[in-house]
């Protein structure tokens, strides 16, 4: 492996609103990328070696959306390509590109503009196995998350109340974050008295959609020093797929082995031997409330079946021992489709730089970021970040 660390030298975003009529999706990409390049102090036309774009055709309504990738992010006539996956997987490509020596500086962009998709539910069903799953009259594609949620609570003994606490915590955390349109001063009793949307979750516990584009700029250690001293280190990445959407029946319900595998890789690369002790901040998957608890367990931040107890104790609170989603998570920031994982990543970078503003937590030195690609996928990406910046 190439020597030297991989640095995050710039981040930028645009959107994080339920709709963004003032820009086309390309305009949104341009907006986030120019912010990231300004943040990193790089000229994309001169300094960036490879551009990675993360998007998926049917989210875009364009059969080869890759066509639209290069221009808005400064990658025209340059080495640019698309990863059909979550933005955090684009970061994993950047990590490999830098480690391989092929690139010194890599820009990764991901975006989603769900407000422009009129038939979002159909698009979700379109991702399901056309033979064995799509034809069933299941009513809502999130039934898959419902099955996992039920399997999770019945295995761990977590209750509906625990899932509701996650929703209350994250929606309130988001009140201090300007990128959080779905933040709310909601109370536990309100969540508990809400009707189920997809059992065992009410709508408070299911994240809404938002439009956003996020760009991050990564660099080799040597290159990073040329541009900035506000460096956050990408110490490790990992990603894994448990089963295909054509073999959903092989999934281990109520668990997320893909996230566990991804975490093991990322921790190994980062030299994290005791995650519960070594990690001081977590920005993790929470598009469904139970996923935060399951993620925490799969990331080894709590023993199997214990995450809800830690939650009860307030460990994951904004001022807790291990703040989990102090940004408000996806429950507050929404789901910008393939940009979701980069949203968590962006928040962790801001925290480690001490630039998270009103939602800055104290003393965060090392963060874990985890994303799951959402139903009906079982693919997860994990990254470990650290910084020596005094926050």
């Amino acid at each position: 492996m190439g020597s030297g660390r991989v640095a995050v030298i710039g981040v930028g975003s645009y959107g994080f609103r339920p709709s963004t009529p003032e820009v086309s999706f390309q305009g949104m990409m341009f907006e986030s990328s120019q912010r990231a390049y300004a943040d990193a102090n790089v000229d994309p036309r001169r300094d960036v070696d490879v551009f990675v774009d993360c998007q998926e055709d049917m989210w875009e309504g364009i059969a080869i959306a890759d066509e639209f990738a290069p221009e808005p992010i400064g990658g025209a006539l340059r080495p640019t390509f698309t990863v059909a996956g979550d933005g955090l997987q684009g970061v994993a490509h950047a990590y490999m590109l830098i480690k391989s020596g092929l690139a010194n500086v890599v820009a990764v962009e991901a975006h989603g503009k769900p407000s422009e998709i009129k038939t979002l539910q159909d698009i979700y069903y379109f991702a399901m196995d056309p033979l064995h799953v799509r034809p069933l009259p299941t009513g809502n594609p999130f039934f898959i998350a419902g099955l996992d949620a039920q399997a999770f609570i019945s295995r761990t003994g977590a209750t509906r109340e625990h899932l509701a606490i996650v929703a209350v915590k994250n929606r309130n955390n988001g009140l201090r974050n300007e990128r959080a349109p779905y933040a709310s001063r909601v109370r536990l009793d309100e969540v508990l008295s809400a009707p189920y949307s997809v059992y065992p979750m009410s709508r408070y516990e299911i994240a809404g959609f938002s439009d956003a584009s996020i760009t991050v700029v990564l660099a080799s250690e040597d290159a990073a020093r040329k541009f900035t001293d506000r460096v956050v280190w990408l110490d490790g990445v990992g990603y894994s797929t448990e089963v295909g959407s054509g073999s959903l029946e092989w999934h281990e319900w109520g668990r997320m082995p893909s996230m566990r595998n991804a975490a093991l890789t990322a921790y190994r690369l980062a030299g994290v031997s005791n995650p519960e002790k070594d990690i001081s901040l977590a920005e993790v998957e929470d598009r469904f409330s139970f996923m935060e608890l399951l993620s925490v367990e799969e990331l080894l931040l709590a023993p199997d079946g214990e995450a809800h107890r830690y939650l009860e104790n307030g460990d994951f609170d904004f001022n807790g021992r291990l703040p989990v989603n102090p940004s408000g998570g996806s429950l507050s920031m929404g789901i910008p489709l393939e940009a979701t994982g980069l949203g968590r990543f962006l928040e962790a970078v801001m925290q480690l730089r001490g630039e998270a503003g009103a939602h800055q937590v104290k003393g965060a030195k090392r963060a874990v970021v985890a994303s799951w690609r959402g139903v009906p996928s079982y693919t997860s990406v994990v990254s470990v970040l650290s910084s020596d910046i005094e926050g």
Partner: protein
Amino acid sequence: MEVVSNLFVKDRVAIVGAGLTTFMRRALETPRELAWEAARQALDQAGLTLKDIDCVVIGSAPDTFDGVHLKGEYLADGSGAINKPMTRVYVGGGTGVFVPVSAWWHVASGLCRTVLAVGEEKMSPAHPHPQYVFRYIWDPILHRPLELNLIWIFAMEMRRYMAKCGAKKEDIALVSVKNKRNALDNPAAQVAANITVDDVLKSELLVWPVNELDISPVSDGAAALVIASENVARQVTDSPVWIDGVGFTLDNQHWENRELAFPRYLNYAARMAYRMAGIERPWKEIDVAEPYDPFDYKELHHIEGLMLARPCEAWKLLKEGYFERDGELPTSPSGGLLGVGNPIAAAGVMKVAELFWQLRYEAGKRQVKKPVHKAVANAWGDLMQAGTVIVLSN
């Protein structure tokens, strides 16, 4: 471009196995089954099992063909990705060659020792005709209102090439004749045939100057490669095929704002790959090539973009037999997309597989006459934008 060469890479990266399904108009197999069939062939040839594979890279072009959104997730199990790192990379039609390109950095980074690189495409599910899907590759606001057809864009490029380079339809048709004939020796081939230039010119006129036999067919199929670090490669085979160079470039989306006679997108990518491979005079150093040939003129276009011939001269060399299997620089000895078929991402992987076999002297009747040391393949994608290049050696 300031891409540095792979100076830090201690380990080289090699291809150690390749496999194909038959390419066909309609397959009984589901897309995930096609991927599995090809992947298993590749593993068998490498003498490995799925347990030996660290990572998986999947390539597939629009989801609107197979009719499954998030197609990478759908193909994961058939590509061997159960409980493994899996990623799907995507540069339209350029994807096929890009899959091993991306696999290269999976290995060169040290993150994976072995990668299963799988390309799959099942175009037959889309109705009334797979071609209809291509309506959705165009700009939704500026282009789609014109009720267009994919072939228009190729016809426009071919016309421009003809106008700028003085090539005639019959000169270009020779590519189709050569490739379909080469494909007669390829067991995967869907449309191998002994045809004449006249057959091409008399086939159904679709979009002048493009006739039916100027075009590769609609296909279902899959292809796979096993890619490994030098260490692993030395253990499993005596004849690894090295990946010496990789290159990729994406031009802007606005094809209506540029010259179409020369593929700038490919030329940039080729220069990147050649620089990495230490190749300075590709027209002399490359022994065999698989230029991307979804249309016959496209092979000529790409031969020029790859700098295997000067701009506007490929068609002249073709007439002299330069690109035949027993010629000076054989191109598409596999039979290419025109002869073997065009399951988009799988077709690109097939081209790299063919070079792998050529460089191991395992191509049987398809083996080119001259000794081979260095080879290049490319694929092209998006709206005349994406160039992907791989340089191999034995």
